[in-house]
């Protein structure tokens, strides 16, 4: 197992890379420095680029679905500041900070014809990026995404994940609750990571809760093929929410996966990868 470091300079950003070979696909960890904010980016596999934006639970690049996808594509997976032990920049207050950071990141990586994928909060982020400019992207995939508020003020469109008991949260999140992470299986470091991730998740989503009231008036700007993938039993944002989001994006399609909750890519990785690959290869 070898490793090497290189430094590139692109558009005022600094990129340093460490490559390692894990399992079947090669994986490169890159630290992209964007005006004082360092963003770790994992690159995995080779082929057309897919930019993967994770949700509030943290990184997804290690999951089986990612392994499957990276056999045909190059998966680029940045860590949102505050997640996985990275610091929250002093000036960060909400998701808009992440949106602008990633506009810089996308320029810095010089993405062309990339596929943009976001999970949950990452789906919201992907939509915010897409309404700014789809020029570097060919397709958009939103998985059990948040970001809009379809109902009135008294309707709870998105479960208040910060106010649910562990049991209620597991029920809302998973079709098969046995897949829920178990605190007693975690090391202290892993648990502290979970706690840090929760803080970052709160920072990006607290108020207005998990949505941008303006986004619905901007989604018409998305002019690339868009697929929404949803777990049939998602109790955080239901397939009905997915349908409302779909209706705001021109030509978007909603694909509902049975026997899956908020994380269909975890509960049904083969089915998820199949639907994803079918869409992006189309």
């Amino acid at each position, binding site marked *: 197992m070898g490793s090497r470091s290189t430094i590139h300079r692109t558009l005022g950003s600094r990129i340093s890379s460490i490559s390692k070979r894990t399992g079947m696909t090669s994986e490169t960890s890159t630290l992209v420095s964007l005006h004082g904010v360092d963003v770790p980016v994992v690159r995995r596999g080779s082929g057309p680029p897919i930019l993967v934006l994770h949700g509030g639970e943290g990184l997804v690049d290690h999951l089986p679905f990612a392994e499957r996808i990276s056999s045909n594509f190059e998966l680029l997976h940045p860590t949102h500041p505050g997640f996985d032990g990275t610091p929250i920049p002093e000036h960060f207050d909400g998701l808009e900070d992440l949106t602008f950071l990633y506009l810089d990141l996308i320029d810095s990586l010089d993405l062309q014809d990339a596929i943009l994928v976001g999970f949950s909060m990452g789906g919201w982020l992907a939509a915010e990026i897409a309404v700014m400019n789809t020029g570097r992207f060919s397709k958009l995939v939103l998985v059990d995404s948040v970001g809009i508020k379809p109902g009135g003020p008294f309707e709870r469109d998105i479960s208040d994940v*910060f*106010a*649910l*008991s*562990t049991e209620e949260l597991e029920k809302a999140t998973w079709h098969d609750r046995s897949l829920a992470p178990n*605190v007693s299986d975690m090391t*202290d470091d892993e*648990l*502290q990571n*979970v*706690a*840090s991730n*929760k*803080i970052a*998740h*709160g*920072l990006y989503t*607290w*108020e207005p809760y998990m949505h941008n009231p303006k986004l619905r008036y901007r989604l018409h700007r998305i002019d690339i093929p868009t697929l929404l993938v949803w777990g049939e039993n998602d109790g955080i944002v239901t397939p009905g929410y997915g349908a409302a989001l779909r209706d705001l994006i021109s030509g978007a399609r909603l694909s509902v996966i049975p026997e899956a909750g908020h994380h269909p890519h975890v509960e049904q990785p083969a089915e998820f990868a199949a639907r994803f690959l079918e869409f992006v290869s189309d």
Partner: protein
Amino acid sequence: MRAWFFTEDAYPYLPDADSYESIRVNLPNKHFDPATGADLYNMYLDMWCAADEMGLNIMNNEHHQTATCMVPAAPIMLGILARETKNARLLILGNPVANRSQPVRVAEEMALIDVLSKGRLECGFVRGVPYETAPANVFPYRGTEKLWEAHDLIMKAWTTHDGPFNFEGRWFHARQVNIWPRPYQQPHPPVWVTMGSAGSAAQVAQRGHIGGVFLAGYPKIRTVFDGYRQGYLDTHGSDAPIDRLAYCALIHVGKTEKEGLEGAEKLLWYMSSNKVPPQFSNPPGYHSPAMAAAMMRGNNSGTGLPTSTNLAEQMARGNVFAGTPDQVYDQIKNFYDYCGGFGNLMMMSQAGFMTFDETLASMKLFSEEVYPRLKELTAGYDAGEMQEIKAALPDVENVDVSDLASEFVR
């Protein structure tokens, strides 16, 4: 020594605790009977008025969406007391300014109370306990920064008398600040801020405000008070006056030891009733990741959950002072010597089902038989001498810090 009578104004008539998830945040208010509530509000106001008549000072606070404290707007109660009382100093500890969106409104409310009471207000600012996050809909991350920004704006609002000024901070914006009325006390009412660590104490000390510590007990009190004294010395170049430090404990004085301890058992309602689930005691951003992780593991130090409702244990920790007047004085004196002295004693003197008569009997014994001795004790305070007394007392065997401590600290 100044003593402050304090009750959190509980609504104790609740169904079996097994029938609800939490006493805070989501306990349905169908369990609050307005007629009973009216009686309780009046009883609590009568207690505070009795404190005034006995020569004690008054302290109140606020919490939200909880049966542990029926007062969601402390300034309203204090406004009543400004009119109903004659001599007592009126301490609000405090205004949860990290959770309130308009610091200027807080400055106005406090100025009104100060004027109405002819300069008897003592104004506290707090970050608020973790369970206040959900009712306030406020993300608790950087709460301390918010507290100090609100503080700076309020201080400026109180002390500016020549027309509007501008404030555009990170958290708060007010472009035409010019409050009416201005405070009665000049340049401003005494300010209190709660503190729970050496670091937070130093921030209070730098500003010269009174630092209040809740139930830190023997295990933590030296760290916090030492942090304050050092911070004060570093900033002001002189020893911190003893009136800058305040400690809050549960206190019950009886004619006999048995009566004192029985009363203290009733005060422990605050610990025994405080049933709060993790999603409210550990919201993201309130605690550090390390502490939040420990709490997720089930280690509840710092959560506010009742790890001990054992009276002997709480007394050994210095959280409860109870017994006869002599015993209570000795317990306070011992704690006072151990921590290097403090000039304000906040007395949690009523809780749960403790009746009006029981509360007043204890207050009367305190004010007649304990308070004069405490005043004498602090009148002879000498910083150097006090530090020698403190140094002669070894650190007490560290007891696990119960959640209780942190719950009230912030």
